[in-house]
């Protein structure tokens, strides 16, 4: 740029009170490359902007410096004005002589000298500015939702209701996630299945939703607006198109004794099964590990009894590739198990609670199944060892949670509430029973939550004991609980019929593998990381990928659903445009000089640097160089500062521009 215009603003008196603006303009006019300089009372006002536009046209300017307030205030304003005259907006820059000068200095001489320097720096920079074109990328308006728990279901329905296509991928044979296993839910005690199943059916029937159950993400490529996702549809051994869901196969399957994981192994299921009666889709799968046919080639009963001939033992895994514009990750959580940990595990576990050797020590989810009307006991609280109704039930909170050395250091957030719920459900079902809860703190910071907890104590007569339990052991048909009440300072011993452990919420096993496929980050516990804890709680730092539910951290249903709807809204915001436009502050690689050391690739926080193969006309590989994907690059410039051969440059902050400013110091 060699015909730069400098416009010095008085900002009423805000600048001119301490800075001699006329002298600044005069000095600016003498700077190399400056063709025109003036000052004006209010540059951002309409007349001010007109003045700028007129000057550009009249003096044939090819660069602009507005010496005024902070660019954070008005850079957009002046770039737009410049653009209106046909100038490239990125050759217009602001020199901040207000926030950084007139407002922070009193001495007129000094302030004026500094203002001149500031203008000088910016003019030197603008001389080297390039015309940049805003970057646009097309948007595929089709969302992928990974995980079909309440989070995934809510997000999928919201996006689909907005009229966009959704692909929902669920690993299990049915959607529903943990919520489908719950009995009644705090803080209102409504039946989980009653509020959940209609939503599951809506997903199945929604014309905009493609549901892949019993499926996993195989591969993810591309970037915001343009992902390619390959889904592995595992072989169900049942043709979904033919199956009517009549259930005859399940009734006739001779393999009936397989522990039912959905019921926490308390009941059994056949080898061809749906996880629970309200499953969506209601199409069975054959559990090949336990099916006689797959183990020994015999049986084949289900195929014989199936009227529509839906059973297909030869079915193979199928790979489907989907074009996707945005991804919502909603893969939920796992529960911490108190089983012994392998020797190399950094956490020790809870041997003192019986390692699953005491049958009447169960976890919270098992209690949910016991309390659930559709559970293995039909909603009666009966203990696993002998099927008797327990009269003294002890609940222990924070098992695995908040235990930095034995388990994990965070609070699982939901167990205080669900334990309070459990004591109530128990009291509702066993009127003459007594519930005890060992706890450290009651963390109930939600709407109507503390009231709920207090109700458990005051109305349902649960006895809360502030203190933890050292050990559990079997004594006859009782489980002895060795605890302490720290308020009284005395040890407490309870001979319980049933002990329920509120085990911690943990990240999904394998969450890190999925994160690596998606290129998103996760914390040290393998929960997915949001881009900003407060202001971008549903976005991943990787553009175009959003988070919903417990995969991001322990969450109850209200929080999960809020986040899922928020993630859906973010997807819709993205889909509201056909093209994505973004500031062209992105890095570019000079392929001729790139030494292929990939130092840039290592430091890039966005994974924007790819390895690009350069081939000759015959297609022979000549060499590999770095290449920045402009759709992904965040524009931090770390690569450039890192590149030892200076082969990558950040547009808008090139070495040339920076050096010019330094020269002008």
């Amino acid at each position: 740029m060699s015909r730069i215009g400098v416009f010095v603003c008085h900002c009423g008196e805000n600048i001119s009170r301490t800075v001699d603006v006329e002298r600044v303009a005069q000095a600016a006019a003498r700077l190399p490359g400056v063709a025109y300089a003036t000052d004006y009372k209010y540059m951002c006002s309409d007349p001010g902007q007109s003045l700028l536009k007129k000057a550009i046209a009249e003096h044939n300017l090819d660069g602009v410096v507005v010496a005024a307030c902070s660019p954070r205030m008005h850079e957009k304003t002046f770039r737009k004005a410049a653009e209106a005259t046909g100038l490239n907006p990125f050759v217009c820059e602001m020199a901040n002589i207000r926030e950084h000068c007139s407002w922070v200095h009193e001495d007129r001489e000094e302030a004026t000298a500094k203002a001149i320097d500031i203008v000088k720096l910016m003019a030197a920079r603008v001389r080297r500015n390039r015309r940049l074109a805003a970057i646009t990328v097309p948007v595929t308006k089709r969302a992928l939702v990974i995980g079909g728990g309440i989070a995934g279901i809510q997000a999928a329905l919201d996006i689909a209701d907005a009229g966009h296509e959704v692909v929902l991928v669920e690993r299990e044979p049915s959607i529903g996630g943990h919520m489908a296993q719950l009995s009644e839910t705090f803080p209102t005690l409504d039946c989980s299945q009653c509020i959940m199943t209609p939503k599951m059916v809506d997903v199945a029937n929604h014309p905009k939703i493609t549901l892949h159950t019993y499926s996993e993400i195989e591969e993810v490529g591309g970037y915001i607006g343009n992902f390619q996702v390959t889904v592995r549809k595992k072989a169900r051994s049942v043709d979904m198109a033919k199956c009517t869901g009549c259930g005859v196969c399940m009734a006739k399957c001779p393999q009936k004794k397989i522990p039912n994981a959905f019921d926490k192994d308390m009941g059994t299921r056949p080898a061809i099964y749906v996880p629970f009666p309200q499953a969506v889709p209601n199409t069975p799968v054959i559990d090949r590990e336990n099916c006689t046919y797959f183990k020994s080639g015999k049986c084949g009963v289900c195929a014989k009894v199936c009227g529509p001939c839906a059973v297909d033992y030869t079915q193979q895994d199928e790979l489907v590739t989907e074009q996707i514009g945005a991804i919502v990750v909603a893969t939920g959580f796992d529960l911490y198990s108190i089983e012994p940990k392998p020797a190399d595990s950094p956490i020790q576990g809870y041997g003192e609670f019986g390692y699953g050797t005491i049958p009447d020590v169960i976890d919270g989810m098992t209690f949910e199944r016991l309390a659930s009307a559709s559970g293995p006991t039909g909603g009666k609280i009966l203990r696993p060892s002998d099927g008797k109704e327990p009269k003294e039930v002890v609940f222990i909170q924070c098992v695995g949670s908040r235990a930095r050395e034995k388990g994990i250091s965070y609070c699982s957030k939901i167990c205080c509430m669900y334990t309070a719920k459990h004591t109530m459900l128990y009291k509702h079902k066993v009127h003459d029973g007594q519930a005890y809860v060992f706890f450290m703190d009651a963390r109930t910071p939600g709407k109507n939550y503390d009231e709920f907890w207090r109700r458990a104590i005051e109305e349902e007569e649960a006895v809360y004991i502030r203190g933890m339990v050292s050990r559990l052991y079997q004594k006859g048909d009782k489980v002895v609980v060795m605890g302490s009440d720290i308020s009284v300072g005395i040890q407490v011993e309870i001979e319980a019929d049933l002990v329920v452990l509120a085990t911690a919420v943990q990240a999904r096993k394998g969450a890190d593998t999925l994160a690596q496929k998606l290129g998103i980050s996760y914390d040290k516990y393998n929960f997915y990381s949001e881009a900003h804890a407060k202001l971008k709680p549903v976005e991943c730092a990787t553009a175009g990928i959003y988070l919903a539910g417990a995969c991001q951290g322990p969450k109850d249903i209200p929080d999960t659903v809020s986040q899922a709807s928020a993630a859906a809204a973010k997807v819709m915001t993205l889909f509201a445009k056909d093209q994505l436009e973004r500031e062209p502050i992105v890095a570019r690689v000079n392929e001729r000089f790139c030494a292929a050391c990939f130092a840039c690739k290592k430091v890039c926080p966005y994974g924007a640097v790819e390895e690009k193969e350069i081939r000759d006309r015959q297609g022979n590989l000549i060499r590999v160089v770095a290449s920045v994907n402009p759709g992904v690059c965040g524009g931090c410039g770390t690569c450039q500062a890192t590149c030892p051969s200076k082969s990558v440059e950040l547009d808008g902050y090139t070495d040339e521009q920076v050096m010019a400013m330094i020269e002008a110091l």
Partner: protein
Amino acid sequence: MKHSKMQLSAETMNLGFVKKVELLSGSSVRRCFQCGKCSAGCPMRSFMEHPPNRVVRLLQLGQYERVLAGRSIWYCASCETCSTRCPNKVDLAAIMDALRKLSWDAQGPSKESYVQLANRLFIENIRTYGRQYEMRLAAVFNVKSGQFLKDLMLGPKLITRGKLRMFHQKNRNIGEIEKIFSRIEEMRKNGEAP
């Protein structure tokens, strides 16, 4: 002091003492969040006036006099149950050791004299004989504690079964043990050891 109000201020909280405990025990006191798991499993709880979790709590508040004045620390059996099960790896057993040492060095402001006496005799025994000499240990303890009749019935039984030796075993290299004791004393005098 037992029931007097805790007056907390930067002066009354003796955190310097707590630092010493932390240094000696190699275990943080602040990590404890008062879950009470230590106290729940402590076999000696019923003999202590402050349960283990409260010992840590009092340290957190810099109220070490209250801890040392009581007999809790002397009634800890060093069974390591608390340290093993603490969710935060507060090494309470080591903290108890540290507190006993500090109390011991300060000539034991604590009430529990029998345990201290037994410890002292045990250590003296090592210094003199190199090994434990159970007969002397028991005899001297009984004399010094004034409990002449205690375990009277056991002694003869043990002797007839050959379990109590009338004469002690002495090491040939007994001089070395004395050297270890005196080197440690020397180091302490020079401030080279805690």
